[in-house]
């Protein structure tokens, strides 16, 4: 299954990264959100780390919606999806393949969003950088697991971007809370971090993100075959 998943991810990445409009649309949307939010700041004013972190995740989640919509749209033309459904492998390989490709594309996008956040929202690197990086990685796994599952849900539907967003965003609330709290620690210096933040609390947020990842990866593996089958034509 892993080999098939890697092949699917490779195919998707090749198709998206070689197309001129591929990832750039999602990237532009995320950057625009960060830029437009910077208009709320006065000259020289610094946004609080938590608000900047929220903005970063808002951009990431909108970007992720477009990424997964794009990944599943690749097989829409000429009914190529039937080819994937007939693969001599478990159908979960498709979920895993899309998950891996989506994860890589999201990480690329975030590498661009982080400097944009420093520039437009006047942020700088903070104290708990390691915890913030682990938090970003765990959150990306969770949102890509959900995105890959729900992307399949919207296959062949009109208005799929909006449907994906309205289903995905409420589900991601617990993970986004953990993500915002953890990544804000990576933007705040010691004076900005409230005294109540201790290592035990940081570990609890990591634990929550990990639990979300485990729960939704397992749920996706069980539920994906019910969504990605031939019943929808």
């Amino acid at each position, binding site marked *: 299954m892993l080999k098939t998943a890697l092949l699917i991810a490779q195919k998707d990445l090749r198709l998206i990264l070689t197309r001129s409009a591929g990832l750039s649309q999602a990237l532009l949307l995320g950057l625009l959100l960060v830029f437009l939010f910077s208009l709320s700041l006065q000259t020289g004013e610094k946004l609080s780390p938590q608000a900047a972190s929220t903005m970063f995740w808002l951009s990431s989640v909108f970007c992720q919606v477009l990424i997964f919509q794009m990944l599943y749209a690749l097989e829409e033309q000429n009914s190529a999806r039937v080819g994937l459904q007939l693969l001599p492998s478990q159908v979960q390989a498709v979920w895993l393949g899309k998950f891996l490709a989506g994860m890589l594309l999201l990480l690329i996008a975030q590498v661009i969003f982080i400097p944009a956040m420093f520039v437009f929202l006047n942020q700088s690197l903070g104290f708990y950088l390691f915890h913030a990086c682990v938090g970003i990685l765990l959150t990306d796994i969770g949102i890509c697991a*959900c995105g890959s*599952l729900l992307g399949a*849900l919207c296959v*062949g*539907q009109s208005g799929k971007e909006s*449907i994906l967003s*309205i*289903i995905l*965003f*409420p*589900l991601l*609330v*617990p*993970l986004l*809370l*953990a993500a915002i*709290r953890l990544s804000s620690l990576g933007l705040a210096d010691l004076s900005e971090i409230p005294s109540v933040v201790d290592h035990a*609390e940081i570990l*609890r*947020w990591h634990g*929550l993100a990990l*639990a*979300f990842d485990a*729960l*939704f990866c397992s*749920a996706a593996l069980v*539920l994906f075959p*019910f*969504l990605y089958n031939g*019943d*929808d034509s």
Partner: protein
Amino acid sequence: MKKYAYMALIGVLCLAFSQFLIYDYAPTERTMGYAQKIFYYHLPLAWWCFVSFFISFVSAILYLFKKNMCYDRLSAVSAEIGFLLATLTLVTGSIWGRQSWGVWWTWDPRLTTTLVLWFIYAAYLVVRTMAMPNEKRAAVSAVITIIGFLDVPLVFFSARLWRSIHPAVFASKGGGLEAEMVHTVIFCVLTFAFIYIPLLAFRLKQVQQLQSMETLRTRMLYEEN
């Protein structure tokens, strides 16, 4: 259906009697005054909303593994009623919150969990209105119900970690409630059972009849052509 009609009648009578309990039997809360009375409907609404979503979740699992459309209908109807109850829970909670905390909305585990569930099931109801084959719609709806319900403990825990000011009503020795208040709220919870069960049964019958009519219509159109 007749027994459900009787049940609904008992529910209406109990609802009328609950007014007496709320305004006469149960004492008025010292700090919040009459505004606290909304609690006697807020709590049953919240509990039955969660019961409804749980029924929807179990039916969704049963549908995926048995492929019986009866379970899909039960899941859909429970979600509809749960959504209605969640809306009323949020409205009554908001009114109560305004009186007791001075704000219409605050970040609290129970409030956030209910609101997130409300959003998930609102999306679910949107998906159910989309044009797609019945089997596909049932499978998609079941998946949304399952992942939505699985998300609930995580939402609750994350919101509690974030911050919380909600009172724990039955957490420790009745949460400071007088015995009369406890009796009244238990009566209200039971009263809502007499309203919830007939509502579920009537709506289920209605959806079943609607689907039968649609099947009949499709068959007639097919025979005409």
